[in-house]
Protein backbone atom coordinates (compact mmCIF):
# COMPACT_ATOMS: atom_id res chain seq x y z
CA UNK A 1 0.00 0.00 0.00
CA UNK A 2 2.86 2.32 0.83
CA UNK A 3 4.16 2.30 -2.71
CA UNK A 4 0.88 3.56 -4.10
CA UNK A 5 2.09 7.05 -4.78
CA UNK A 6 5.69 7.91 -5.34
CA UNK A 7 5.62 11.69 -5.41
CA UNK A 8 7.30 13.47 -8.26
CA UNK A 9 10.03 15.94 -7.43
CA UNK A 10 9.17 19.56 -6.61
CA UNK A 11 5.59 18.90 -5.60
CA UNK A 12 5.91 19.50 -1.91
CA UNK A 13 2.85 20.85 -0.17
CA UNK A 14 4.58 21.65 3.10
CA UNK A 15 8.11 22.82 3.49
CA UNK A 16 9.63 23.08 6.95
CA UNK A 17 12.95 24.90 6.92
CA UNK A 18 15.45 25.14 9.77
CA UNK A 19 12.65 25.12 12.31
CA UNK A 20 13.69 25.75 15.91
CA UNK A 21 11.64 26.07 19.04
CA UNK A 22 13.08 27.05 22.37
CA UNK A 23 11.29 26.88 25.71
CA UNK A 24 13.39 28.85 28.14
CA UNK A 25 16.69 27.00 28.26
CA UNK A 26 15.40 23.94 26.44
CA UNK A 27 15.88 23.69 22.72
CA UNK A 28 13.00 21.33 21.90
CA UNK A 29 13.39 21.51 18.15
CA UNK A 30 16.76 22.27 16.65
CA UNK A 31 16.92 23.27 12.99
CA UNK A 32 14.61 20.67 11.53
CA UNK A 33 14.06 20.53 7.76
CA UNK A 34 11.63 18.30 5.96
CA UNK A 35 8.99 18.34 3.29
CA UNK A 36 5.62 16.77 2.83
CA UNK A 37 4.95 15.81 -0.77
CA UNK A 38 1.57 16.52 -2.24
CA UNK A 39 -0.63 13.45 -2.19
CA UNK A 40 1.53 11.53 0.27
CA UNK A 41 1.25 10.26 3.79
CA UNK A 42 4.27 11.46 5.71
CA UNK A 43 4.96 10.14 9.19
CA UNK A 44 6.90 11.95 11.86
CA UNK A 45 8.34 9.42 14.30
CA UNK A 46 10.85 9.35 17.07
CA UNK A 47 11.25 8.30 20.70
CA UNK A 48 9.39 10.11 23.47
CA UNK A 49 10.55 13.68 23.87
CA UNK A 50 12.03 13.81 20.38
CA UNK A 51 10.12 17.01 19.58
CA UNK A 52 7.46 15.57 17.27
CA UNK A 53 4.50 17.24 18.90
CA UNK A 54 6.40 20.50 19.17
CA UNK A 55 7.03 20.48 15.42
CA UNK A 56 3.36 19.73 14.96
CA UNK A 57 2.31 22.55 17.21
CA UNK A 58 4.47 24.96 15.25
CA UNK A 59 2.95 23.86 11.95
CA UNK A 60 -0.60 24.20 13.23
CA UNK A 61 -0.12 27.53 14.95
CA UNK A 62 -0.25 26.29 18.50
CA UNK A 63 3.26 27.61 19.06
CA UNK A 64 5.06 30.39 17.35
CA UNK A 65 8.47 28.96 16.35
CA UNK A 66 11.63 30.62 17.66
CA UNK A 67 13.19 30.44 14.20
CA UNK A 68 12.61 28.93 10.80
CA UNK A 69 9.98 28.85 8.14
CA UNK A 70 6.93 26.75 7.48
CA UNK A 71 5.48 27.16 4.01
CA UNK A 72 2.27 25.71 2.77
CA UNK A 73 2.05 25.53 -1.02
CA UNK A 74 -1.56 25.27 -2.02
CA UNK A 75 -2.97 23.63 -5.13
CA UNK A 76 -3.44 27.01 -6.81
CA UNK A 77 0.26 27.75 -6.36
CA UNK A 78 -0.14 30.34 -3.62
CA UNK A 79 2.12 30.05 -0.61
CA UNK A 80 1.17 30.67 3.01
CA UNK A 81 3.84 31.34 5.62
CA UNK A 82 2.28 29.40 8.49
CA UNK A 83 4.69 30.59 11.17
CA UNK A 84 3.19 34.07 10.96
CA UNK A 85 -0.50 33.17 11.11
CA UNK A 86 -2.97 33.04 13.98
CA UNK A 87 -5.00 29.90 14.75
CA UNK A 88 -8.07 30.50 12.69
CA UNK A 89 -6.01 31.85 9.80
CA UNK A 90 -4.05 28.61 9.68
CA UNK A 91 -7.25 26.63 9.33
CA UNK A 92 -8.33 28.99 6.58
CA UNK A 93 -4.96 28.61 4.88
CA UNK A 94 -5.67 24.90 4.59
CA UNK A 95 -4.20 23.03 7.55
CA UNK A 96 -6.37 20.92 9.84
CA UNK A 97 -5.23 18.95 12.85
CA UNK A 98 -6.27 16.55 15.56
CA UNK A 99 -4.80 16.14 19.02
CA UNK A 100 -3.41 13.25 21.04
CA UNK A 101 -6.35 13.56 23.37
CA UNK A 102 -9.80 13.79 21.89
CA UNK A 103 -11.07 17.32 21.51
CA UNK A 104 -14.49 16.94 20.04
CA UNK A 105 -17.23 19.33 21.06
CA UNK A 106 -18.51 16.66 23.39
CA UNK A 107 -21.80 18.34 24.23
CA UNK A 108 -22.84 18.85 20.64
CA UNK A 109 -24.19 16.33 18.18
CA UNK A 110 -22.03 14.39 15.75
CA UNK A 111 -23.49 16.34 12.85
CA UNK A 112 -22.96 19.70 14.55
CA UNK A 113 -19.31 18.85 15.08
CA UNK A 114 -18.93 18.44 11.35
CA UNK A 115 -20.91 21.58 10.56
CA UNK A 116 -18.72 23.73 12.79
CA UNK A 117 -15.76 22.66 10.72
CA UNK A 118 -17.52 24.20 7.72
CA UNK A 119 -18.23 27.44 9.51
CA UNK A 120 -15.98 29.57 7.30
CA UNK A 121 -17.87 28.62 4.16
CA UNK A 122 -21.26 28.86 5.81
CA UNK A 123 -20.50 32.22 7.28
CA UNK A 124 -19.48 33.63 3.93
CA UNK A 125 -22.57 32.23 2.27
CA UNK A 126 -24.80 33.69 4.92
CA UNK A 127 -23.45 37.21 4.88
CA UNK A 128 -22.10 36.77 8.43
CA UNK A 129 -25.37 35.65 9.96
CA UNK A 130 -27.51 38.43 8.62
CA UNK A 131 -28.67 36.28 5.72
CA UNK A 132 -29.47 33.48 8.12
CA UNK A 133 -31.55 35.85 10.18
CA UNK A 134 -33.59 36.78 7.14
CA UNK A 135 -33.84 33.16 6.03
CA UNK A 136 -32.35 33.87 2.64
CA UNK A 137 -32.29 31.04 0.14
CA UNK A 138 -28.52 31.27 -0.23
CA UNK A 139 -28.20 30.34 3.41
CA UNK A 140 -30.45 27.34 3.08
CA UNK A 141 -28.52 26.13 0.06
CA UNK A 142 -25.18 26.56 1.84
CA UNK A 143 -26.48 24.77 4.93
CA UNK A 144 -27.85 21.92 2.82
CA UNK A 145 -24.52 21.57 1.06
CA UNK A 146 -22.69 21.53 4.39
CA UNK A 147 -25.00 18.82 5.66
CA UNK A 148 -24.39 16.79 2.50
CA UNK A 149 -20.66 16.97 2.95
CA UNK A 150 -20.99 16.02 6.61
CA UNK A 151 -23.17 13.06 5.65
CA UNK A 152 -20.59 11.89 3.13
CA UNK A 153 -17.91 11.85 5.79
CA UNK A 154 -20.20 10.15 8.28
CA UNK A 155 -20.76 7.43 5.73
CA UNK A 156 -17.02 7.16 5.16
CA UNK A 157 -16.37 6.63 8.88
CA UNK A 158 -19.45 4.51 9.44
CA UNK A 159 -21.29 6.86 11.76
CA UNK A 160 -24.15 7.99 9.55
CA UNK A 161 -26.76 6.48 11.84
CA UNK A 162 -25.32 8.32 14.87
CA UNK A 163 -25.51 11.79 13.28
CA UNK A 164 -27.87 13.20 15.90
CA UNK A 165 -26.24 11.58 18.91
CA UNK A 166 -24.15 13.60 21.32
CA UNK A 167 -20.52 13.30 20.25
CA UNK A 168 -19.29 12.71 23.79
CA UNK A 169 -21.38 9.55 24.01
CA UNK A 170 -19.69 7.72 21.13
CA UNK A 171 -17.25 4.88 21.73
CA UNK A 172 -13.61 5.90 21.82
CA UNK A 173 -12.68 4.59 18.40
CA UNK A 174 -15.66 6.30 16.82
CA UNK A 175 -14.69 9.60 18.46
CA UNK A 176 -11.24 9.28 16.95
CA UNK A 177 -12.69 8.74 13.47
CA UNK A 178 -15.12 11.59 13.98
CA UNK A 179 -12.24 13.92 14.81
CA UNK A 180 -10.57 13.03 11.54
CA UNK A 181 -13.82 13.56 9.66
CA UNK A 182 -14.26 16.90 11.37
CA UNK A 183 -10.77 17.98 10.37
CA UNK A 184 -11.50 16.88 6.80
CA UNK A 185 -14.70 18.92 6.73
CA UNK A 186 -12.58 22.06 6.87
CA UNK A 187 -11.44 20.90 3.41
CA UNK A 188 -7.76 21.17 4.24
CA UNK A 189 -4.88 20.87 1.82
CA UNK A 190 -2.91 19.18 4.58
CA UNK A 191 -4.28 16.98 7.35
CA UNK A 192 -2.13 16.75 10.49
CA UNK A 193 -2.84 13.90 12.89
CA UNK A 194 -1.23 13.59 16.29
CA UNK A 195 -1.15 9.90 17.23
CA UNK A 196 -4.43 8.94 15.60
CA UNK A 197 -4.05 5.27 16.52
CA UNK A 198 -3.41 5.84 20.23
CA UNK A 199 -5.69 3.67 22.29
CA UNK A 200 -7.29 1.88 19.36
CA UNK A 201 -7.71 -1.87 19.26
CA UNK A 202 -6.18 -3.77 16.31
CA UNK A 203 -9.40 -3.80 14.33
CA UNK A 204 -9.92 -0.08 14.83
CA UNK A 205 -6.31 0.61 13.85
CA UNK A 206 -6.90 -1.36 10.71
CA UNK A 207 -9.97 0.73 9.87
CA UNK A 208 -7.99 3.86 10.60
CA UNK A 209 -5.21 2.82 8.21
CA UNK A 210 -7.75 2.26 5.46
CA UNK A 211 -9.41 5.59 6.19
CA UNK A 212 -6.11 7.46 5.98
CA UNK A 213 -5.18 5.84 2.70
CA UNK A 214 -8.58 6.67 1.28
CA UNK A 215 -8.16 10.27 2.42
CA UNK A 216 -4.79 10.44 0.69
CA UNK A 217 -6.20 8.96 -2.49
CA UNK A 218 -9.41 10.99 -2.37
CA UNK A 219 -11.57 7.89 -2.44
CA UNK A 220 -13.18 8.38 0.98
CA UNK A 221 -15.66 10.94 -0.30
CA UNK A 222 -16.03 13.24 -3.24
CA UNK A 223 -13.42 15.53 -1.72
CA UNK A 224 -10.04 15.75 -3.48
CA UNK A 225 -6.95 13.79 -2.42
CA UNK A 226 -5.44 15.27 0.71
CA UNK A 227 -1.88 15.08 1.94
CA UNK A 228 -1.44 13.69 5.42
CA UNK A 229 1.21 14.37 8.04
CA UNK A 230 1.03 12.17 11.10
CA UNK A 231 2.81 11.50 14.34
CA UNK A 232 2.44 7.90 15.34
CA UNK A 233 3.92 5.43 17.79
CA UNK A 234 2.24 2.40 16.25
CA UNK A 235 5.04 1.32 13.90
CA UNK A 236 2.76 -1.22 12.25
CA UNK A 237 0.60 1.55 10.87
CA UNK A 238 3.49 3.85 10.08
CA UNK A 239 5.35 1.24 8.06
CA UNK A 240 2.23 0.10 6.29
CA UNK A 241 0.71 3.34 5.07
CA UNK A 242 3.45 5.97 5.02
CA UNK A 243 5.06 7.07 1.80
CA UNK A 244 7.75 8.96 3.61
CA UNK A 245 9.03 8.82 7.17
CA UNK A 246 10.88 11.54 9.04
CA UNK A 247 12.66 10.50 12.24
CA UNK A 248 13.40 12.97 15.01
CA UNK A 249 15.48 12.48 18.10
CA UNK A 250 16.41 15.08 20.69
CA UNK A 251 14.89 17.79 18.53
CA UNK A 252 16.92 16.96 15.43
CA UNK A 253 16.16 15.06 12.29
CA UNK A 254 18.23 11.89 12.28
CA UNK A 255 16.86 10.17 9.20
CA UNK A 256 14.22 10.33 6.54
CA UNK A 257 13.13 8.30 3.57
CA UNK A 258 10.75 5.54 2.56
CA UNK A 259 9.65 3.28 5.42
CA UNK A 260 11.83 0.33 4.40
CA UNK A 261 14.94 2.42 4.30
CA UNK A 262 14.21 4.16 7.60
CA UNK A 263 13.49 0.87 9.32
CA UNK A 264 17.02 -0.31 8.64
CA UNK A 265 18.78 2.97 9.31
CA UNK A 266 21.36 2.48 12.04
CA UNK A 267 20.76 5.92 13.58
CA UNK A 268 17.08 5.15 13.89
CA UNK A 269 17.73 1.78 15.44
CA UNK A 270 20.17 3.39 17.82
CA UNK A 271 17.68 6.08 18.82
CA UNK A 272 14.94 3.58 19.47
CA UNK A 273 17.03 0.95 21.19
CA UNK A 274 18.96 3.50 23.18
CA UNK A 275 22.51 2.77 22.03
CA UNK A 276 24.97 5.38 23.04
CA UNK A 277 25.42 6.90 19.64
CA UNK A 278 24.57 10.28 18.35
CA UNK A 279 23.88 10.89 14.68
Amino acid sequence: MSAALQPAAGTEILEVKSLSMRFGGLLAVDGVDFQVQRGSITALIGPNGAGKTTVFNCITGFYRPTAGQIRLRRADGSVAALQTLKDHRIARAGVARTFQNIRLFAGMTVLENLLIAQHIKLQKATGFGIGAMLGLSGYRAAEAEAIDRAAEWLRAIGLLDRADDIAGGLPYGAQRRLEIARAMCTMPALLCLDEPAAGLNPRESDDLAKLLVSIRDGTATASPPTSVLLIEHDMGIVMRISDHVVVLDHGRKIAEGPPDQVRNDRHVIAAYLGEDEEG
Partner: protein
Amino acid sequence: MAYALQQLINGISLGMIYGLIAVGYTMVYGIIGMINFAHGDIFMVGAFIALIAILSLMSSDLMGGPAAILLVLAISMAFTALYGWTVERIAYRPLRGSFRLAPLISAIGMSIVLQNFVQVSQGARVKPLEPQLRGGVELMRDGDFVVQLSYMQILIIVSTLAVLAVFTWLVTQTALGRAMRACEQDRRMASLLGINTDRTISLAFVIGAALAAVAGTLYLLRYGIADFFMGFIVGVKAFTAAVLGGIGSLPGAVLGGLLIGLIETFWSAYFSVQYKDVAAFSILALTLVFLPTGLLGRQEIEKV
Protein backbone atom coordinates in the same frame (compact mmCIF):
# COMPACT_ATOMS: atom_id res chain seq x y z
CA MET B 1 -56.81 34.31 45.55
CA ALA B 2 -57.38 37.30 43.29
CA TYR B 3 -54.54 39.08 45.06
CA ALA B 4 -52.23 36.14 44.51
CA LEU B 5 -53.15 35.98 40.84
CA GLN B 6 -52.34 39.66 40.44
CA GLN B 7 -48.99 39.11 42.13
CA LEU B 8 -48.32 36.17 39.85
CA ILE B 9 -48.84 38.40 36.82
CA ASN B 10 -46.65 41.13 38.28
CA GLY B 11 -43.98 38.63 39.22
CA ILE B 12 -43.86 37.05 35.79
CA SER B 13 -43.55 40.36 33.99
CA LEU B 14 -40.79 41.51 36.33
CA GLY B 15 -39.12 38.11 36.11
CA MET B 16 -39.00 38.27 32.33
CA ILE B 17 -37.04 41.49 32.49
CA TYR B 18 -34.56 39.85 34.85
CA GLY B 19 -34.43 36.86 32.55
CA LEU B 20 -33.48 38.98 29.55
CA ILE B 21 -30.57 40.50 31.44
CA ALA B 22 -29.56 37.18 32.99
CA VAL B 23 -29.15 35.69 29.52
CA GLY B 24 -26.42 38.25 28.85
CA TYR B 25 -24.53 37.29 32.01
CA THR B 26 -24.79 33.60 31.40
CA MET B 27 -23.89 33.77 27.70
CA VAL B 28 -20.69 35.70 28.33
CA TYR B 29 -19.81 33.44 31.24
CA GLY B 30 -20.38 30.40 29.05
CA ILE B 31 -18.04 31.58 26.34
CA ILE B 32 -15.19 33.30 28.15
CA GLY B 33 -15.76 32.28 31.74
CA MET B 34 -15.98 35.77 33.18
CA ILE B 35 -18.76 37.62 34.95
CA ASN B 36 -19.41 40.79 33.01
CA PHE B 37 -20.18 43.09 35.93
CA ALA B 38 -20.77 45.99 33.54
CA HIS B 39 -23.79 44.19 32.11
CA GLY B 40 -26.21 45.80 34.56
CA ASP B 41 -24.94 49.18 33.40
CA ILE B 42 -25.42 48.16 29.80
CA PHE B 43 -29.05 47.62 30.81
CA MET B 44 -29.07 51.14 32.27
CA VAL B 45 -27.57 52.55 29.07
CA GLY B 46 -30.32 50.75 27.13
CA ALA B 47 -32.97 52.42 29.29
CA PHE B 48 -31.40 55.84 28.74
CA ILE B 49 -31.15 55.41 24.99
CA ALA B 50 -34.80 54.37 24.98
CA LEU B 51 -35.64 57.45 27.05
CA ILE B 52 -33.81 59.71 24.63
CA ALA B 53 -35.54 58.04 21.70
CA ILE B 54 -38.96 58.40 23.32
CA LEU B 55 -38.41 62.03 24.18
CA SER B 56 -37.24 62.90 20.68
CA LEU B 57 -40.16 61.04 19.16
CA MET B 58 -42.49 62.90 21.53
CA SER B 59 -41.02 66.26 20.63
CA SER B 60 -41.74 65.56 16.99
CA ASP B 61 -45.20 64.25 17.89
CA LEU B 62 -44.52 60.75 16.65
CA MET B 63 -44.78 58.94 19.98
CA GLY B 64 -47.78 56.74 20.58
CA GLY B 65 -48.94 53.41 19.32
CA PRO B 66 -47.13 50.10 19.00
CA ALA B 67 -45.12 51.14 15.93
CA ALA B 68 -43.41 53.90 17.90
CA ILE B 69 -42.61 51.51 20.75
CA LEU B 70 -41.12 49.03 18.31
CA LEU B 71 -39.03 51.81 16.82
CA VAL B 72 -37.80 52.80 20.29
CA LEU B 73 -36.89 49.17 20.99
CA ALA B 74 -34.98 48.93 17.73
CA ILE B 75 -33.07 52.17 18.35
CA SER B 76 -32.21 51.16 21.89
CA MET B 77 -31.07 47.68 20.81
CA ALA B 78 -28.86 49.07 18.04
CA PHE B 79 -27.10 51.69 20.12
CA THR B 80 -26.78 49.55 23.23
CA ALA B 81 -25.32 46.74 21.14
CA LEU B 82 -22.69 49.22 20.04
CA TYR B 83 -21.91 49.94 23.69
CA GLY B 84 -21.66 46.22 24.39
CA TRP B 85 -19.27 45.73 21.52
CA THR B 86 -17.13 48.69 22.58
CA VAL B 87 -16.89 47.56 26.19
CA GLU B 88 -15.66 44.14 25.10
CA ARG B 89 -13.24 45.60 22.60
CA ILE B 90 -11.56 48.12 24.87
CA ALA B 91 -11.86 46.57 28.33
CA TYR B 92 -11.89 42.77 27.93
CA ARG B 93 -10.23 41.72 24.70
CA PRO B 94 -6.83 43.23 25.53
CA LEU B 95 -6.89 41.21 28.77
CA ARG B 96 -7.65 37.88 27.16
CA GLY B 97 -4.96 35.44 28.14
CA SER B 98 -4.13 37.53 31.17
CA PHE B 99 -4.74 36.14 34.66
CA ARG B 100 -8.30 35.18 35.48
CA LEU B 101 -9.17 38.10 37.72
CA ALA B 102 -7.99 40.77 35.30
CA PRO B 103 -11.12 40.99 33.13
CA LEU B 104 -13.28 40.81 36.25
CA ILE B 105 -11.60 43.85 37.73
CA SER B 106 -11.76 45.55 34.36
CA ALA B 107 -15.52 44.80 34.27
CA ILE B 108 -16.04 46.48 37.62
CA GLY B 109 -14.08 49.45 36.31
CA MET B 110 -16.18 49.52 33.17
CA SER B 111 -19.32 49.50 35.29
CA ILE B 112 -18.12 52.60 37.15
CA VAL B 113 -17.09 54.26 33.88
CA LEU B 114 -20.53 53.74 32.35
CA GLN B 115 -22.33 54.98 35.47
CA ASN B 116 -20.22 58.10 35.66
CA PHE B 117 -20.44 58.72 31.97
CA VAL B 118 -24.24 58.68 32.12
CA GLN B 119 -24.26 60.69 35.35
CA VAL B 120 -22.11 63.40 33.82
CA SER B 121 -23.75 63.47 30.42
CA GLN B 122 -27.37 63.04 31.52
CA GLY B 123 -27.34 64.46 35.02
CA ALA B 124 -27.71 62.69 38.33
CA ARG B 125 -31.40 63.35 38.84
CA VAL B 126 -33.95 60.57 38.43
CA LYS B 127 -35.59 60.97 35.04
CA PRO B 128 -39.34 60.47 35.07
CA LEU B 129 -41.31 59.33 32.07
CA GLU B 130 -45.07 59.53 31.89
CA PRO B 131 -46.77 56.21 31.15
CA GLN B 132 -46.80 55.53 27.44
CA LEU B 133 -49.19 52.65 27.59
CA ARG B 134 -52.25 52.90 29.82
CA GLY B 135 -55.09 50.59 30.65
CA GLY B 136 -55.34 46.87 30.56
CA VAL B 137 -57.52 43.82 30.48
CA GLU B 138 -59.65 43.05 33.50
CA LEU B 139 -59.23 39.38 34.25
CA MET B 140 -61.20 38.94 37.45
CA ARG B 141 -63.09 40.94 40.04
CA ASP B 142 -63.16 39.97 43.69
CA GLY B 143 -65.18 42.52 45.62
CA ASP B 144 -63.26 45.74 45.26
CA PHE B 145 -60.12 44.07 44.04
CA VAL B 146 -59.65 43.97 40.31
CA VAL B 147 -57.11 41.62 38.78
CA GLN B 148 -55.69 43.45 35.86
CA LEU B 149 -53.32 42.42 33.14
CA SER B 150 -52.13 45.79 31.95
CA TYR B 151 -51.23 46.43 28.33
CA MET B 152 -47.76 47.22 29.57
CA GLN B 153 -47.45 43.75 31.08
CA ILE B 154 -48.75 42.23 27.87
CA LEU B 155 -46.09 44.19 25.99
CA ILE B 156 -43.39 42.94 28.36
CA ILE B 157 -44.47 39.33 28.14
CA VAL B 158 -45.03 39.30 24.39
CA SER B 159 -41.86 41.14 23.45
CA THR B 160 -39.73 39.11 25.85
CA LEU B 161 -41.11 35.86 24.47
CA ALA B 162 -40.56 37.07 20.91
CA VAL B 163 -36.98 38.18 21.59
CA LEU B 164 -36.18 34.96 23.42
CA ALA B 165 -37.66 32.91 20.58
CA VAL B 166 -35.46 34.65 18.04
CA PHE B 167 -32.49 34.29 20.36
CA THR B 168 -33.11 30.57 20.92
CA TRP B 169 -33.40 30.01 17.20
CA LEU B 170 -30.18 31.93 16.64
CA VAL B 171 -28.27 29.85 19.16
CA THR B 172 -29.63 26.42 18.31
CA GLN B 173 -30.23 26.58 14.57
CA THR B 174 -27.79 28.90 12.89
CA ALA B 175 -24.12 28.69 12.03
CA LEU B 176 -23.46 31.64 14.32
CA GLY B 177 -25.09 29.87 17.26
CA ARG B 178 -23.13 26.73 16.54
CA ALA B 179 -19.92 28.73 16.53
CA MET B 180 -20.85 30.27 19.87
CA ARG B 181 -21.56 26.90 21.42
CA ALA B 182 -18.32 25.54 20.00
CA CYS B 183 -16.36 28.42 21.53
CA GLU B 184 -18.08 27.70 24.81
CA GLN B 185 -16.87 24.10 24.81
CA ASP B 186 -13.34 24.46 23.45
CA ARG B 187 -12.31 27.85 22.21
CA ARG B 188 -8.88 26.81 20.98
CA MET B 189 -10.27 23.92 18.98
CA ALA B 190 -12.96 26.11 17.47
CA SER B 191 -10.24 28.49 16.41
CA LEU B 192 -8.24 25.67 14.83
CA LEU B 193 -11.29 24.75 12.79
CA GLY B 194 -11.28 28.23 11.32
CA ILE B 195 -13.75 30.01 13.56
CA ASN B 196 -12.77 33.58 14.33
CA THR B 197 -13.23 33.31 18.07
CA ASP B 198 -12.61 37.00 18.73
CA ARG B 199 -15.49 37.90 16.48
CA THR B 200 -17.70 35.22 17.98
CA ILE B 201 -17.04 36.60 21.45
CA SER B 202 -17.78 40.11 20.21
CA LEU B 203 -21.08 38.90 18.84
CA ALA B 204 -21.98 37.34 22.17
CA PHE B 205 -21.49 40.75 23.78
CA VAL B 206 -23.49 42.46 21.05
CA ILE B 207 -26.38 40.03 21.40
CA GLY B 208 -26.26 40.20 25.19
CA ALA B 209 -26.33 44.00 25.07
CA ALA B 210 -29.25 43.98 22.64
CA LEU B 211 -31.22 41.76 25.01
CA ALA B 212 -30.32 44.04 27.92
CA ALA B 213 -31.54 46.99 25.82
CA VAL B 214 -34.92 45.31 25.42
CA ALA B 215 -35.00 44.79 29.18
CA GLY B 216 -33.97 48.41 29.78
CA THR B 217 -36.61 49.76 27.45
CA LEU B 218 -39.35 47.63 28.98
CA TYR B 219 -38.25 48.52 32.49
CA LEU B 220 -38.33 52.21 31.64
CA LEU B 221 -41.79 51.95 30.10
CA ARG B 222 -43.11 49.90 33.00
CA TYR B 223 -41.71 51.86 35.93
CA GLY B 224 -41.37 55.24 34.26
CA ILE B 225 -38.00 56.15 35.76
CA ALA B 226 -34.38 56.02 34.74
CA ASP B 227 -31.27 57.04 36.60
CA PHE B 228 -27.59 56.37 36.25
CA PHE B 229 -27.52 53.96 39.19
CA MET B 230 -30.49 51.80 38.20
CA GLY B 231 -28.30 49.16 36.56
CA PHE B 232 -26.63 48.15 39.77
CA ILE B 233 -29.45 46.58 41.74
CA VAL B 234 -31.26 45.21 38.70
CA GLY B 235 -28.00 43.87 37.33
CA VAL B 236 -27.10 42.11 40.54
CA LYS B 237 -30.56 40.57 40.68
CA ALA B 238 -30.26 39.35 37.10
CA PHE B 239 -26.88 37.94 38.04
CA THR B 240 -28.55 36.16 40.95
CA ALA B 241 -31.08 34.81 38.46
CA ALA B 242 -28.29 33.51 36.23
CA VAL B 243 -26.62 31.79 39.19
CA LEU B 244 -29.91 30.34 40.40
CA GLY B 245 -30.68 28.95 36.97
CA GLY B 246 -27.16 27.61 36.63
CA ILE B 247 -24.57 29.98 35.23
CA GLY B 248 -23.77 29.04 31.65
CA SER B 249 -27.24 27.64 30.97
CA LEU B 250 -29.42 29.82 28.73
CA PRO B 251 -32.79 28.26 29.64
CA GLY B 252 -31.59 28.39 33.23
CA ALA B 253 -31.13 32.16 33.00
CA VAL B 254 -34.73 32.67 31.91
CA LEU B 255 -36.03 30.26 34.52
CA GLY B 256 -33.90 31.92 37.20
CA GLY B 257 -35.16 35.34 36.13
CA LEU B 258 -38.77 34.25 36.43
CA LEU B 259 -38.14 32.71 39.86
CA ILE B 260 -36.37 35.80 41.18
CA GLY B 261 -39.16 37.99 39.82
CA LEU B 262 -41.80 35.84 41.48
CA ILE B 263 -39.94 35.52 44.77
CA GLU B 264 -39.39 39.27 44.94
CA THR B 265 -42.99 40.09 44.07
CA PHE B 266 -44.57 37.60 46.46
CA TRP B 267 -42.22 38.60 49.23
CA SER B 268 -43.23 42.24 48.76
CA ALA B 269 -46.89 41.29 48.60
CA TYR B 270 -47.05 39.11 51.70
CA PHE B 271 -44.11 40.10 53.86
CA SER B 272 -42.28 43.34 53.52
CA VAL B 273 -41.44 45.56 50.58
CA GLN B 274 -38.43 46.97 52.39
CA TYR B 275 -36.82 43.57 52.56
CA LYS B 276 -37.48 42.45 49.00
CA ASP B 277 -33.87 42.89 47.96
CA VAL B 278 -32.77 40.93 51.00
CA ALA B 279 -35.06 38.12 49.89
CA ALA B 280 -33.60 38.11 46.40
CA PHE B 281 -30.01 38.15 47.58
CA SER B 282 -30.62 35.51 50.23
CA ILE B 283 -31.49 33.30 47.30
CA LEU B 284 -28.07 34.04 45.82
CA ALA B 285 -26.34 33.04 49.04
CA LEU B 286 -28.47 29.93 49.49
CA THR B 287 -27.92 28.85 45.88
CA LEU B 288 -24.18 29.26 46.15
CA VAL B 289 -24.08 27.19 49.33
CA PHE B 290 -26.53 24.42 48.57
CA LEU B 291 -26.81 24.27 44.79
CA PRO B 292 -23.63 25.75 43.34
CA THR B 293 -24.38 24.54 39.82
CA GLY B 294 -27.85 26.07 39.88
CA LEU B 295 -31.09 24.50 38.76
CA LEU B 296 -30.15 23.67 35.18
CA GLY B 297 -26.38 24.04 35.32
CA ARG B 298 -24.17 21.10 34.65
CA GLN B 299 -21.55 19.74 36.94
CA GLU B 300 -18.07 20.78 35.95
CA ILE B 301 -15.94 17.69 35.82
CA GLU B 302 -12.27 18.41 35.53
CA LYS B 303 -10.52 15.78 33.47
CA VAL B 304 -7.23 14.61 34.87
